[in-house]
């Protein structure tokens, strides 16, 4: 049954680029990192996304079909994503490749970095049609573990389409790319906040 997750992921992955692509693209563009940094941003965004999927899978499995998703929660999530995008427009994220020495220093110096995984997590908790399809498959899995497996494979299948996005950092005119990324963050931020406010 778990292979169904992979098939769903592969078939709807393009939609994921359309829905979540602008978020991570604007982060990459605004902070205009090198390609390796850009892939690091994508990796962390994906990690946040995976956490969200696992959480959805676990809750779906535990609740076994009970309605747990609330429109109000989704609206709040939407506002949170909007605020995070505006933060991205205003604040320059430090490079992911910066190293901290010692656990405390590492945490302190990497605290702002948690921003990207958190963005991946919150935006993916926001349930979209592909996630609903994967959730249904997960629900039909014989056990919670297999349900989670379905979601992990869904994640892998849908993530493949995201891989080319960081290549935007190869563009030479870094200033233009940064400015476009900043404007994208503003536009997406306002859009998500308005969407959330309407949903409240």
């Amino acid at each position, binding site marked *: 049954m778990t292979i169904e997750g992979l098939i769903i992921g592969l078939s709807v992955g*393009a*939609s994921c*680029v*359309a*829905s979540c*692509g*602008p978020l991570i*693209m*604007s982060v990459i563009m605004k902070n205009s990192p090198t390609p390796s940094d850009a892939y690091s941003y994508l990796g962390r965004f994906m990690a946040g996304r995976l956490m969200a999927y696992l959480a959805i899978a676990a809750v779906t499995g535990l609740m076994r079909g009970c309605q747990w998703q609330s429109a109000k929660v989704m609206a709040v999530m939407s506002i949170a994503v909007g605020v995070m995008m505006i933060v991205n427009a205003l604040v320059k994220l430090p490079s992911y490749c910066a190293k901290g020495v010692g656990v405390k220093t590492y945490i302190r110096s990497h605290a702002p970095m948690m921003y990207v995984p958190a963005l991946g997590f919150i935006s993916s908790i926001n349930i979209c049609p592909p996630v609903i399809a994967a959730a249904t498959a997960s629900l039909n899995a014989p056990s919670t573990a297999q349900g989670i497996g379905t979601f992990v494979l869904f994640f892998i299948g849908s993530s493949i389409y995201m891989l080319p996005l960081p290549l935007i950092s190869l563009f030479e005119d870094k200033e*233009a790319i940064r*400015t*476009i*990324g900043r*404007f*994208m963050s*503003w*536009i*997406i931020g306002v*859009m998500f906040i308005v969407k959330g406010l309407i949903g409240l």
Partner: protein
Amino acid sequence: MKNKLYSTGNVLRSILLTLPMTLISMMMLSQGGQALGTLEDTCVYLAACAIYNIAFFLMLYKGEIDKWRAVVFATSAVLFSVSFMNNLIELRGSVTYSDADVLSCEIPFCHIVTTMVVIPAAIKQTIIFPGSIMTGFASISAMFVIIFGSSIILGRGFCSWGCFYGGWDDAFSRVAKNPIIKKVNVAYRWFSFAMLIIMALWSAATLAPEYCSWLCPFKLVTERDAIVDTETLLKNVVMVILFLGLVVVLPLITKKRIQCATFCPMGAFESLFNKISIFHVKNNESKCIKCGKCQRSCPLLAIDSKLKPLINCSKCGKCVDACPTGAMQFHIKGTPVGTKITTARLLFLYPAYTLMVTLIGGSVVNAIKIIINLF
């Protein structure tokens, strides 16, 4: 006054160089003979031919491209709206459209929606615009051929020579003698690129042309949602605010084409074609005296601090006209800079003007007839 750098010098030479355009415009404006039915139709047709050819002649004779281009471009935009809205009233009885019109795919295809159709077509194999693929006076396939063909040849030249909306903000950007706001932050030139990426992906996610639904100011001068509920009321309010703000007021006070320079996703999309077009506007640095007139005059914020035209240049020719030394010039990529500049101008002008006549000329003929019939 003539621009001595580019004026063809004498009337006869200018007439001879206008002749190819005369033939092309006569052919295009005749609309396969449809425009020549009655004596009145023929007179209107000849008048339209005269307008286009006199403007072209003046570009050559006076050596000023932008001034005469803008007159025809702006007039054409207004007349296009008259013709388009009249067509809709004849076809559908109204310039508003309802859900039923959308469902029956009766919305004429507009080039701006190209930016929202391409990605869903590529990744979801779906055409998300409610228009006819093959038939009608603005079918999707016909518009695709014209837009991509012209963009490959002219790059973003489309935005100063072919777009039937651009003339609106171009016109308003010329009304005031001096700008009230003298400095516009040039970073805003990149806003339209952000709009392009978001609108393309948002439309792919929702499978609806979201810019058209919510943000296009030009619906005010073409067709718009019938107001039937709060959502359609809101859409109409947004449309009026955007038209007044981006197309009228801001161009008036900045003397820049704010809608086209900063907001329209199609402008950004067209800009990408500047990378492949053989024509561009170039600063011949050996002649440049760094006076900055080109940068101040550019209506699209398309000249950078090093006085070089950028990817968003629409080849309007305003900076070329403004440059006192002839440093700013039309140029064909791969040819030596500073040589054969008149040839490069001419080679650009013919296809650019042909695009204008082809895309908007028919509507101009129709609109003149409509206006005459009003009296």
